[in-house]
């Protein structure tokens, strides 16, 4: 069994600039932050191809104020989870789809689109998830500045039935 620290060293050997932004929180938990999105694909591919991280657990979207972040949780057979975090500017939140690497990323990426308003390039046409088809444009519920009352202004949703 390898340890998360070993994996971190291997990663640092390839990408020395990750030294400050990576840490091991406990055994089998590795956190890496790639704040520069242009370098993200390189790190992801290295982790998948050379470090045997072969299962994508999920993608978490975060609203970090000026930037929107996405954490890719990727697991390996030996139980180590690599949490790869990256950020894109809030006014242009464009990610590239990782479906070519992980087929199952599709539904998690759709979730990012619906709930946090990411744009994902290279995602095929398909049904949305998880919000209803009639959900108004530009309403992203998981953003911190969003309130359920935002919907009240928009008809026909959001008008509560009159109580008797």
């Amino acid at each position, binding site marked *: 069994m390898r340890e998360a620290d070993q994996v971190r060293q291997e990663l640092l050997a390839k990408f020395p600039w990750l030294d400050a932004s990576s840490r091991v929180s406990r055994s089998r*938990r590795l956190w890496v932050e790639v704040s520069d999105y242009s370098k993200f694909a390189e790190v992801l591919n290295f982790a998948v191809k050379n470090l045997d991280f*072969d299962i994508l*657990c*999920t993608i978490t979207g975060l609203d970090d104020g000026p930037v929107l972040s996405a954490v890719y949780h990727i697991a390996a057979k030996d139980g180590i*989870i690599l949490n790869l975090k990256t950020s894109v500017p809030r006014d242009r939140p464009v990610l590239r789809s990782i479906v070519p690497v992980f087929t199952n990323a599709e*539904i998690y990426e759709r979730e990012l689109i619906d709930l946090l308003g990411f744009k994902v390039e290279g995602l095929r046409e398909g049904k949305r998830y998880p919000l209803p088809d009639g959900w108004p444009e530009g309403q992203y519920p998981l953003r911190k500045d969003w309130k359920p009352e935002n919907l009240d202004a928009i008809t*026909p*949703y959001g008008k509560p039935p009159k109580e008797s």
Partner: protein
Amino acid sequence: MAKNVVIPVGPQHPALKEPANFSLTLQGEKILESTIRVGYNHRGIEKACEERTYVQDMYLIERICGICSHSHSTAFIQAVEEIAGLEMPGRGLYIRTLVAELERVHSHLLWLGVAGHEVGFDTLMMYTWRDREIVMDLLQVLTGNRVNYGINTIGGVRRDVTKEQLDDVMKGTQTLEERTKYYIELATQEPTLIQRLSGVGVLKPEDAVNLGAVGPVARASGVARDARKEDPYAVYADLEFNLITDNHNDVFGRAVVRLLELMESYKMIRQLVTKMPDGPIAAKAPRKIPAGEAISRYEAPRGEDVHYVKANGTEKPERVKVRAPTLANIQAVTKMLENGQLADMPIVVAAIDPCFSCTDRAIEIVSPDGPGILVWKDLREWSIEWYKERGLDLSGLNKKLISRLGR
């Protein structure tokens, strides 16, 4: 029939206990293509979590799913405990694991019944569900409720168990083990059942890895993955159990994996009861959780639960992300349905043991009151009118009942 037919299965359909939509393109009875739409149960739990305290979230998270409620609450609480850096008492962890395994027993027996029902074998359903009552009662004795146990608290568990209760658990396990042996025999000997299960919904091992299948679905395709082994949480490192895999790659394999897992669970329950240490059941937890983030994995009956929690030093979490096992498995269903028969669709979908409540978490939409849409009250008035037109006036009955019963 040369013409292809597109048949909608769901969002409301007898085969689905919860809403999801499968559009199947059929040629005769053969399924050519399928598309899946989920999200009908999206309730805004992730957003709601951010607006509640950790204590409140515990119960909200527990209600993501009625069957694997303990799974979700444990996964969430493990993440919170990791951030808070709590030292966990052994007895608390043992009780938590005991409830977890009892829940797995209850969930797998439920699945067997549902699978029986989907292939028209209702007798099997009735018997497995009757036996499931034993484990439901055990859970009620230990935790206080049959579902949504509410046993977890940050830092341990809320209720201690007594010697007599553990004896009850041993006795119940004994009965259940005998029953399970019978079901294993039944599943491997009844030809009509085998015919319906084997060769159906095939998922090849490479597809299982590719599509990120988890839990019994992956294990039935020969992918040996189990968070209890890979990333031992709670007290699984102390327990001796086998990782069950099967190479049938089909629904029959999934049934075999679940049935054999039941036997492993009984083994684990025995070990948990005999090894249970004495001591406190919970550590004192602070109301404010220090800033930090953690990801927690938990092998729920249906597969791996992944919870991500980010704390910001206040009483409320900054972000909670839930990945339920069904969401990971639902993408494999399209593959399984391909070139299958329409008649096999219910059992294939049931074979991943779907739980759409788990899958779709997150916003509360107040009922639309737009034009042409009737709300409950309108519908009620309309039905009263409808019956009145036909000379039947029942509107007074409710009032009479209220006055009679005094409620």
